[in-house]
């Protein structure tokens, strides 16, 4: 059973200090970039040691999930601070000042081709972050799709589209319409962090993505229809809790889920791990890997 950790990973204490120093004029952007590289190297090492199937660079330079794409596109800007769901973390809402169009794709991480997982905002989430000043379909076609294309050509093993709003809205029509604008051949997954996915799962069975990510700290196992046709990215690490999960409990849960999801199950956090400190995230990744190993041994 595959295991990996898409999304924004927490910064190390050293990187936190470096970015604070940068804001206070006490260090240079180059020094922060160097510390970021060290953090990425360390994160890759942690993921390899944990035996994870796909590697992430942790998006350690990203200020929020929307900002890099907003900055890489014409017609978009980012300014007002806006709370991210029911967390104490904020993103800058996207301002639309023209027809959005990706001008220069966000660079792919420097990781082996086919072995890395990238994360992007889903088109619907992007539209919501822009207060629907532009449609999800338009953002899908003109911003997200070319970015997906660029990362696919750069060797992405999987691109996870983070969609935190749809589960709370409970309606999939607009989302499905936007997803239809994305490259059909790209290795895509749609993740629904921090929300009860029960109402959406039936409609998403036909979504043009290979896998659906479900937060099982907000969604019951019974909500997954028996025989579900898509791979499930099972959110089994609670990215908003400092409590450490039991690898054995994760493995048992995954076995139960696998019985309902013949297309496959992969183990993931239920959202960005940036909501816990790095030391805790690191231990959670280790436990995710151990659960995956346990399942492999049982198989």
């Amino acid at each position: 059973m595959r295991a990996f950790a898409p999304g924004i990973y927490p910064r190390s204490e050293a990187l936190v200090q470096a970015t604070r120093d940068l804001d206070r004029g006490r260090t240079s952007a180059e020094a922060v970039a160097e510390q970021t590289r060290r953090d990425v190297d360390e994160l890759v090492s942690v993921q390899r040691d944990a035996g994870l199937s796909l590697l992430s660079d942790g998006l350690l330079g990203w200020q929020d999930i929307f900002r890099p794409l907003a900055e890489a596109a014409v017609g978009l800007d980012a300014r007002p601070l806006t709370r991210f769901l029911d967390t104490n973390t904020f993103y800058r809402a996207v301002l639309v000042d023209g027809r959005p169009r990706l001008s220069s794709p966000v660079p792919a991480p420097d990781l082996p081709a086919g072995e890395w997982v990238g994360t992007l905002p889903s088109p619907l989430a992007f539209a919501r972050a822009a207060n629907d000043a532009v449609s999800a379909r338009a953002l899908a076609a003109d911003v997200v799709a070319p970015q997906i294309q660029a990362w696919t050509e750069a060797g992405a093993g999987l691109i996870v589209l983070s969609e935190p709003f749809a589960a709370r809205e409970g309606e999939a029509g607009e989302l499905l319409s936007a997803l239809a604008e994305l490259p059909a051949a790209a290795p895509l997954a749609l993740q629904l962090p921090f929300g009860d996915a029960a109402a959406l799962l039936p409609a998403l069975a036909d979504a043009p993505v290979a896998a659906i990510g479900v937060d099982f700290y907000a969604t019951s196992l019974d909500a997954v229809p028996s025989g579900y046709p898509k791979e499930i990215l099972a959110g089994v690490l609670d990215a908003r809790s400092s409590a450490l999960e039991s690898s054995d409990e994760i493995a048992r849960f995954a076995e139960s889920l696998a019985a309902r999801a013949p297309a496959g199950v992969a183990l993931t956090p239920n959202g960005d791990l940036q909501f816990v400190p790095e030391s805790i995230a690191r231990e959670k990744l280790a436990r995710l890997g151990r659960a995956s190993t346990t399942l492999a041994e049982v198989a």
Partner: protein
Amino acid sequence: MSGVRFITREIGSLAKPSWRVKAVAGRPLEESDFSAAEDWGRRLDVSGHEELVEGLRAGSLSKSQVDDWAAIYAIRLLERVGLDAVYDGEQKRTEMYDHVAAFADGFEARGIVRSFDNKYYAKAAVVETPSVAGPQDVKEFEFVRAYTDRVVKVPLTGAYTMEDWSYDEHYGHEGGLGASAEHRYEARRRFVHDVAVNVIRPNVEGLVAAGAAWIQIDEPAATTKPAEVPLVVEGFNEATRGIDAMKSMHICFSDYSALWPAVIELEDCLELQLEFANRDSRELGTKDEDRPGYAETLGLFKEHGYPGVGLGVLDIHSDFVEPAELVRDRILYAAGVLGDPERIQVNPDCGLRTRSWEVVYEKLANMVHGTRLAEEALG
């Protein structure tokens, strides 16, 4: 002479001067730090500031003494820009969450998480029922009281925010995977109750006994989970019920539509001090279309008639210095919507800790000037 007089005030935190940060952290100070202490001491007319500079250069000041100086500087800054109500810029506190979590029993530090951009906060986990041995901020208040003749407003972190910003390894620990929503809500309710009664209330009682006349409960997490706003209200009431002082609540960067009708149950709450400017236009004007950051929320205040509004007129996340005329127009617009200027007082959106003192000085001075312009216009 205008018949309307608004009370201008800050919300809470100011940035800590570099000399304070380095001295308390035990890091070497540089010439620029000494200059900052000297320049601001002179500019704010801080009595005896030469002693501070000398002490910093000699390394002869204790951390406590440095904290005291930072508080005095902050008080003088807030006085100098003309605010009616002041505190000490929370110079003696780490930050609003850690200040409480580090003092109370029952919390354990877990590390740093991001708030936004390159801003972070320390987060703790509750591991047992929280409690305190005594009131936390009485000495801090008494110090401020001794150094100013202005109205003193004491900011305290609210019980709900303490609950929401903490990891829970005690109340809902057994919840986790598969727990019901009702189970999670009840666990959070017990957590809020215990913080309000065992941690916040002893502090409020101690402060008021020491002479504090105005307690501000900060609840930036108030609408994080809209269904839990009643817990915010419950926490406020349990922490302040029957206390003989002015009481208000500060909330920011939130969905204010979630506050009503629950906030009508706030007992004896003077006002809600809210952030507005962050979501507003920077153009002048007093029409609805000129003030997109204010219209919707002020409509709620008008509709429900309670409580009063502490009108955020400064965007604390930008170095943009709001012209006095923009402040004036924001106040005039609010007065027009509410139809009753008596329900309005004036403040920044939130604490100004992310701005330099230079920017803070200009922003607050313009806020006061703009407020006076609004008073003239209304008079």
